[in-house]
């Protein structure tokens, strides 16, 4: 886990790489990698790679990056973890490759030498990396299937630049800050900026599950090598005979344990975030099941919730007792939030309405001396834990026919709008009539922060017009559906994993944890596990749910956790945000934002900063 960056002056007209620019960008990411900072420059001055290191595997200098192959042909800078690196290394050694370090980074170099760009199919883990291939004179970049690790780039037509953070690229000083209307509009629609857009027109995210090459004419079109919807579709196509329920359970239990085992590979202690939910509790139980002896866990508690049903910390402490962890409950107060707010806004790479909870739990983990923590993120996407898994198929079924009547949706929405706002319903309700007839439309409404027709009250009409045209929100959601898995569950899971989890949850986890130099690992966001779960679900849908996850550790989760109704994770942060006085006062809180949900007010304030 680290911060990476690089510059490639690919065009014959470009000046050689400005070394100081590389260092400025690299060192803007100091919190991502406090243990070391290195840079590599090609002899001809056309390529430079930077790296900030948080040492977790092979703590010796042999693991230092950027790392060159022994013949000097390849150089890599890498952020993330390759969990199957030992197996890959064994395969490569059998083919005659000779290794000089114990790091997963070196495996990338040998694997690229052996497999070329197809190497990405062999990797299990979270990663964003760039390899300079001096023989082909090509820069090769790749990002993991889910997009756990970030990777942003800018190609101005002469020079290509990349980094783990948008703000770090801007800190280099050579990239235009012109805003991208698609990023602005996307932020208001969803509460996070949807990839590949960023708030800057010149900077794009390399989409999750994609590779990119940069040659003498510049950055080529990103190439997708992994799609979550395709995994579900392939699982459908396998048409395995209906499994015995116990077989399915055993298989999944093994797969969950296998994922957790892989996610524990480290040369430093691995701790865990613990809430009162099934996901994090089951993961801590599985850590114990696969043999981790000493486990540090951390839970957030809020002064306001003391003695109230919202207080999860007592239940979490019960889980900790059941799995015999060294447990810490960290109390966060409104005063601490207000004191941290400037640093939170500074660390927030792209505007987002979430991530503050992760900020504090990561801060607490780091205070305990942890460098790595396991998180239960991804359980709801994998096992259908969100209300959207129920709502979206229902809406689509109900509205499919009327939505095919030309003009029905728009007219119905317009007619119902005044009534809906008069009775105080969510503005999403009329949106449902317009969009609810398709999966993409229903998803847009379900996960929407503001509805498209509200944007003109928030942004300049020209920005809205250009932003909506470029973003094409419905088409963007639809693009995550092909090759169209058959089941409703698979469709919703594909959308939630490829959009909400990717653009919001994973990105927020990255910036909020890296600001504290903490690596967060997510065993439930794993392409190998996804394959097993999708296959099992296609064969025996009723067997694959949260209950199975709860039962997967050798010692099952306490009953109080398993039987607790899904309440969602509640924090007082929304109220704190309402109370917080930001320098840039919200301009339009009267009207659209008066009495609005805190997330809408927060979005407007963030956008004004």
């Amino acid at each position, binding site marked *: 886990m680290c911060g990476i960056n690089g510059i490639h002056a690919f065009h014959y007209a470009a000046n050689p790489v400005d070394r100081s620019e590389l260092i400025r960008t690299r060192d803007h990411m100091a919190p991502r990698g406090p243990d070391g900072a290195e840079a590599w420059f090609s002899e001809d001055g056309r390529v430079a790679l930077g790296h900030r290191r948080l040492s977790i595997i092979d703590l010796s200098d042999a693991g230092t990056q950027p790392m060159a192959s022994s013949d000097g042909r390849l150089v890599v800078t890498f952020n993330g973890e390759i969990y199957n690196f030992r197996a890959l290394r064994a395969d490569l050694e059998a083919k005659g490759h000779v290794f000089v370090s114990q790091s997963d980074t070196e495996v990338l170099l040998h694997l690229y030498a052996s497999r070329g760009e197809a190497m990405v199919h062999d990797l299990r883990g979270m990663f964003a990396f760039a390899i300079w291939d001096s023989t082909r004179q090509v820069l090769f970049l790749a990002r993991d299937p889910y997009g756990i690790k970030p990777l942003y780039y800018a190609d101005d037509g002469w020079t290509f630049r990349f980094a783990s953070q948008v703000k770090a690229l801007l800190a280099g000083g050579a990239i235009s800050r*012109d805003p991208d209307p698609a990023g602005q509009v996307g932020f208001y629609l969803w509460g996070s900026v949807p990839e590949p857009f960023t708030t800057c027109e*010149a900077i794009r995210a390399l989409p999750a599950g994609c590779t990119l090459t940069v040659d003498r004419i510049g950055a*080529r079109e990103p190439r997708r090598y992994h799609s979550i919807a395709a995994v579900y579709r392939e699982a459908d196509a396998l048409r395995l005979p209906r499994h015995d329920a116990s077989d399915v359970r055993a298989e999944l239990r093994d797969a969950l344990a296998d994922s957790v085992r892989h996610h524990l590979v480290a040369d430093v202690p691995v701790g865990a975030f613990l809430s009162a939910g099934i996901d994090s509790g089951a993961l801590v139980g599985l850590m114990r099941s696969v043999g981790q002896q000493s486990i540090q866990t951390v839970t957030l508690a809020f002064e306001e919730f003391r003695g109230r049903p919202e207080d999860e910390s007592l239940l979490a402490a019960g889980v900790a007792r059941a799995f015999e962890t060294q447990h810490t409950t960290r109390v966060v107060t409104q005063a601490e939030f207000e004191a941290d707010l400037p640093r939170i806004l500074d660390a927030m790479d792209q505007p987002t309405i979430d991530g503050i909870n992760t900020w504090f739990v990561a801060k607490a983990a780091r205070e305990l001396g942890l460098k790595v923590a396991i998180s239960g993120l991804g359980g709801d996407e994998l096992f259908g834990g969100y209300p959207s898994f129920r709502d979206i198929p229902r809406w689509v079924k109900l509205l499919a026919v009327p939505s095919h009547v030309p003009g029905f949706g728009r007219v119905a929405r317009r007619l119902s709008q005044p009534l809906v706002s008069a009775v105080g319903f969510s503005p999403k309700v009329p949106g449902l009539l317009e969009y609810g007839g398709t999966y993409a439309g229903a998803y847009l409404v379900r996960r929407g922060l503001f509805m498209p027709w509200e944007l003109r009250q928030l942004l300049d009409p020209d920005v809205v017009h250009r932003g909506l045209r470029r973003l094409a929100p419905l088409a963007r959601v639809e693009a995550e559906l092909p090759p169209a898995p058959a089941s409703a569950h698979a469709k919703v899971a594909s959308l939630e994993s490829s959009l909400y989890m990717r653009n919001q949850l994973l990105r927020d986890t990255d910036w909020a944890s890296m600001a504290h130099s903490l690596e967060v690992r997510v065993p439930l966001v794993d392409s190998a596990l996804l394959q097993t779960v999708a296959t099992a679900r296609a064969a025996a849908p009723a067997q694959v749910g949260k209950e199975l996850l709860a039962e997967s550790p050798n010692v099952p989760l306490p009953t109080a956790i398993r039987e607790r109704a899904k309440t969602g994770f509640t924090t007082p942060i929304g109220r704190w945000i309402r109370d917080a006085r930001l320098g840039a006062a919200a301009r339009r809180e009267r009207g659209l934002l008066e009495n609005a949900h805190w997330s809408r007010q927060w979005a407007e304030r963030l956008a004004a900063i």
Partner: protein
Amino acid sequence: MEVLALLSDGFGAVGGIARYNQALMTALGACPHISGVTILPRFGTPTSPLPDGVVQQPAAGKFAWAARALASAARQKFDLVFCGHLNTVVLAAAIAKARHIPLWVQVHGIEAWEPRGRAVRAGLEAATIVTSVSRYTRRRLLSWSDISPDRVRVLPNTFTVSFVPRSRNTALAEHLGLAGKRIVLTVGRLSATERYKGHDRIIRALPEVLRQVPDAAYLIVGTGDDRSRLEKLAIDEGVAHVVKFAGEVPEADLPDHFAVADLFAMPSTGEGFGIVFLEAAASGLPVIGGNRDGSCDALADGAIGCAVDPDDRAQLVEAISAALQGRQVSQPDAVSRFAIENFASHVDELVRSLAH
């Protein structure tokens, strides 16, 4: 690949776009993947033999030209349509679509900076590849069109070998009445509608420059309907005695005019690229340009010349005085990056990217 090239200015036409097109068509014709290039120009009649692999049909008026383009596309099999100007992209895109062949669009400068209508945008967004003369034009284009950035490449201007450092042409200086002066030169159109080249900015800077460099003079090469305004401005500023309007100069005589100057300055705000910067730098002159447009590319971000804020008079005065006093030196080597060999090899790379 057989290429149909729809150009505004072909071989035999004059001006920046014509020179660019001629270099590009020559390079295309020389690509191993290209079997032939058929040019349909709006303007230009070749006066010398065309490069190998290139044929040019006679120039024609707007409608005849469009009809000829459609007829050629219907008659002959092409594998690529090259569109040399955004204003004709609708026709080019229609041909490419009808024949199911890729479209290559070239953009130069101001025509691609401001948002264009729906039809032009659709035509542009249908392109397989767009080449822009500068990073600036590319950025402006990408701000209003939704074409994927990885389809928009930069193919900078290039210059010919006739521009090399020469010894000072004292005879011409005498002829122009500028003997013994330290001369600032601008070469460019004097257009009343555009007025972006910055002649007026230099004239306004001259009084202060003269205080620092008393033997400074300003030579303006080029003609146009803004000349009388500029002449009056020179009188108003009290510098008419050191401002010389040379009028239009044939391209063949340009090297001599570079050889008479001590500095080339054009603080413009409207350059797509500004090939004249390259010619000046290759001729051995220090160069000053603006920092707000495609000039940054011609100045190679400061490696070739000095980029100033065109509207900051103090900055401009300091830059001109420094160059005339020898504090900014010429960088004729830095300009070699824009040599025709690099241009041709890049065109070949672009063609290969289309072929794959």
